């Protein structure tokens, strides 16, 4: 899962690739169709498609002529699930920390206001 997550994050880090994914979300498309909105050559788009394919985010049919690409969701789902668990771990941990910090701060305040104990000694005062 580790390598896949790595590939997924890097694939998603590029704005052109994210735009390609957004386009494919509304339907399959050929390389020509995908290259159209960008001021980019077909080989340049193909490079992006290879990255997305390696990350398992898109699948390309073996049709020699058109090789249309389509969206594949699984790695995105894995990345999303991981991020969700990560968020949850910290969210809960920090709430625990709120409690602990409150205890620590109250404890410190108690130390600053020590309870008076009778010592049996007369206090001397300068007049």
């Amino acid at each position, binding site marked *: *899962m*580790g*390598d896949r*997550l*790595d590939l997924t*994050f*890097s694939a*998603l*880090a590029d704005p052109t690739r994210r735009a390609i994914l957004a386009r494919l979300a509304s339907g399959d498309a050929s390389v020509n169709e995908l290259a159209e909105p960008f001021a980019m050559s077909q080989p340049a788009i193909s490079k992006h498609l290879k990255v997305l394919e390696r990350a398992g985010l898109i699948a390309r049919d073996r049709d020699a002529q058109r090789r249309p690409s389509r969206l594949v969701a699984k790695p995105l789902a894995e990345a999303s699930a*991981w*991020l969700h668990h*990560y*968020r*949850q*771990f*910290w*969210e*809960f*941990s*920090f*709430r*625990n*920390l*709120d*409690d*602990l*910090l409150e205890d*620590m*701060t109250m404890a*410190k305040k108690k130390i600053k206001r020590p309870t008076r104990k009778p010592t049996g000694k007369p206090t001397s005062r300068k007049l």
Partner: protein
Amino acid sequence: MRYVDSFKVSTPSAREIQVTRDFHAPRQTVFDAFTKPELVRRWLLGPPGWTMPVCEIDLRVGGAYRYVWRKDGAKDMGMGGIFRQIESPEKIVATEKFDESWYPGDALDTTVFAEDGDITSVTITVLYISQEARDTARRSGMEAGMAAGYDRLEELLAALPVGGLR
């Protein structure tokens, strides 16, 4: 006062995850809560049901830390690393690796504590250093530091100011 809404998770780059949260406590107190094992095991637990049977922290440069989390019915989860930089009470930099590692290599954790009046803001940035990043650094030889190898890269990364990572 609890600043629950201050909690944020973001991905500043393809290799980083950043978590921020504010706390109503002095910076030194928060720093202690993050670095004393008897305190860490009381909060770094995630959702209910988990305990920390192992929580060891040797707080010095080159020192190691080790955490193990346990929950009934689940497999123990272990993690640890080495401290690279310690500036009390402002900053801690340490490597991170889970026993059942889902990513290749270590990650580099930078925790920064910033004080503003009664509030301490904590920012944790996890930088995932992949094999790919290492190989690229070696091959490109773009900067003298990077060409010197992975260990050097880690040193440079440890020295980066957190502002640069935002």
